[in-house]
């Protein structure tokens, strides 16, 4: 029970509601207090001004017509409906005329220039009632004194009004706080709970699950979309990983089994050094091929894991392409393939000479292996050109090419088109190139060389001097 209460007190809904309530209460107290105070001051000033004006008026009457006229004026004023307070007293403080029933005599001796508050009793039917008023006393010859005042009950009524509104507002705010609490807990927190529940399901292994998106476009939707994107990426990576491990299992287990069987077979039967020798040589050859496949896989994993290799520099893509073409040229010539190079202008890019050379080498090697058609003089074209903000290296052959629908697929690891299965190769060449391009924030585009396969490597071009060593 205690823990249930504790959990309730810890919920965001409860805390938010409490914070809202406290903040708005403080604001309301301040606001109403301020308004009350200013209104009070304003009303008091108005009353004082009214009293001052009447005092001046009575003084005028006295100057014009003496005590007699003053007496008449006060009598008239005091009888008017809704009149203020008036009193004319003689030198001993006895009331002569006016509408005040009882007043402490000391007040009449106070000759202050401004009105000040007093308590007094006035006739209200037959009853005497105590009231508070602002009064000012005026002295005349012969000890006569006139008192002019205004009841401040009006002002106090305003104050009561504000007090009442304060209580109402506070009540409304508590209700609003409850509504906020309801809204936050029902609407907002429910969605967070949904996210939590979905995450728990995903953690449990169901990577296909996605966070609910209401389509309202609010921050929860944006968060859900971002998380869903992330989940999609993770799902892709997991699928890729599974595919790779399946392929590794197939592509590495097969030669390993072959190797094992060969050795097993050599050991059986009559001892024969010649047979042993050939079995051992074949084993070494096979293990070398396995090491190469492993190296290619490690290389791809390494390049894809990102990070800058130690040797990144500004390098000349055209220079690298010329070197690689020159490197492969004798092999091509031996195979009866001509390599045409069109990479005259320097094309600086930021990257690793080694990785770029390896990517281009893989493309040329692929073209040599798979880019030939019987009865057509094979030509491999290696070109580098600037294209707007990118430097593009192209390796094209004039072989059979790759059908448009197959282009995406050949980039996958270990994928080898049926036609090439009989030829040597790990099936990792193009995926290594793709990994190198991702590493360089570039892209790889397979196209039609008409006839043949054309591979464009787009690198972001940079300006600046080319490092000697790259």
């Amino acid at each position, binding site marked *: 029970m205690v823990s249930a209460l504790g959990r309730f007190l810890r919920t965001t809904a409860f805390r938010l509601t409490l914070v809202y309530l406290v903040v708005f209460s403080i604001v309301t107290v301040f606001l109403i207090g301020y308004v009350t105070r200013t209104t009070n001051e304003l009303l008091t000033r108005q009353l004082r001004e009214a009293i001052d004006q009447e005092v001046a008026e009575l003084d005028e009457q006295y100057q014009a017509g003496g005590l007699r006229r003053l007496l008449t004026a006060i009598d008239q004023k005091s009888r008017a409906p809704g009149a203020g307070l008036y009193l004319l007293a003689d030198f001993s403080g006895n009331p002569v005329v006016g509408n005040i029933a009882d007043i402490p005599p000391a007040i009449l001796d106070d000759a202050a220039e401004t009105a000040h508050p007093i308590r007094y009793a006035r006739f209200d039917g037959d009853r005497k009632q105590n009231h508070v008023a602002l009064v000012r006393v005026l002295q005349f010859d012969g000890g006569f004194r006139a008192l002019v005042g205004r009841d401040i009950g009006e002002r106090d009524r305003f104050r009561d009004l504000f007090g009442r509104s304060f209580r109402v507002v506070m009540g409304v705010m508590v209700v609003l706080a409850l509504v906020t609490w309801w809204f936050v807990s029902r609407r907002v927190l429910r969605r967070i709970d949904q996210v939590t529940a979905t995450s728990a399901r995903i953690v449990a292994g169901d990577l296909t699950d996605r966070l609910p998106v209401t389509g309202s476009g609010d921050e929860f939707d944006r968060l859900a979309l971002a998380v869903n994107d992330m989940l999609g990426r993770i799902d892709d990576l997991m699928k890729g990983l599974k595919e790779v491990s399946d392929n590794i299992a197939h592509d590495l287990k097969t030669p390993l089994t072959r190797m094992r069987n060969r050795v097993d077979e050599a050991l059986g039967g009559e001892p024969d050094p010649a047979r042993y020798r050939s079995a051992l040589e074949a084993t070494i050859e096979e293990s070398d091929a396995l090491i190469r496949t492993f190296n290619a896989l490690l290389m791809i994993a390494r390049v894809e894991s990102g990070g800058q*290799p*130690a040797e990144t520099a500004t390098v000349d893509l055209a220079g690298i392409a010329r*070197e690689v073409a020159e490197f492969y040229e004798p092999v091509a010539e031996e195979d009866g393939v001509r390599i045409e190079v069109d990479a005259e202008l320097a094309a600086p890019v930021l990257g690793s000479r080694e990785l770029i050379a390896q990517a281009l080498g893989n493309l040329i090697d692929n073209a040599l292996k798979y880019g030939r058609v019987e009865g057509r003089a094979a030509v491999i074209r290696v070109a580098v050109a600037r294209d707007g903000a990118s430097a593009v290296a192209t390796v094209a052959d004039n072989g059979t090419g790759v059908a448009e629908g197959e282009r995406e697929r050949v980039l996958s690891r270990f994928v080898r088109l049926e036609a090439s299965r009989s030829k040597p190769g790990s099936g990792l060449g193009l995926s290594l190139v793709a990994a190198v391009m991702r590493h360089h924030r570039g892209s790889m585009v397979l196209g039609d060389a008409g006839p043949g396969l054309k591979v464009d490597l787009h690198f972001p071009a940079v300006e600046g001097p080319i490092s000697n060593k790259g």
Partner: protein
Amino acid sequence: MRILIIEDDREAAQYLLKALREAGHVPDHAADGDDGWHMASGGGYDVLVVDRMLPKRDGLSIVEALRADHDETPVLILSALGQVDDRVKGLRAGGDDYLAKPYAFTELLARVEALGRRRRPGEAETTLRVGDLVLDRLSHSVTRAGQDVPLQPREFRLLEYLMKHAGQVVTRTMLLENVWDYHFDPQTNVIDVHMSRLRAKVDKGQERSLLHTVRGAGYMIRDPAR
């Protein structure tokens, strides 16, 4: 040559010791970083073969410490990490060569021998000679028995590297790394084709061949008269 092998894998070390002895060298073995450092700093070795990952002390730190002591004994670094940046790290630490595991013994032997003889005087020679083949590094010209042999720039560098290591086995990867500065596997027999081109220019029509293929290992340029 006296060779110190700092390698924690007993089996690999025993295999190396035996094979190096058979190749006519005098190998010693240290099984961890501390022993390796003590034996290496004692001096007297022509080449050190250092594994990168060792118990007690990292292989690279041994090399760094030796270089800080102005010990310039050539070092071949062995590592299971074969990537380019690891190689760069190894060479920056003061290693002279880097070999990724798994390696063929012939590869290791060729590299160790190349390192061991690197320090002999004459490294800065302007003229390299093997038999009647003369390579002039200043004028970039090559003659065979007085006859001019026209070579492409890359062929010149290839021949220069071979002649610098005359009488030693030079592997395909050594050529790839030192002549082309590539550290990847070119997938095809590119090096062999380059070599056969060079051989056609250097040895063709000559009575005696200077360029030899060493089966299962690589190439060697050798004066047959000696």
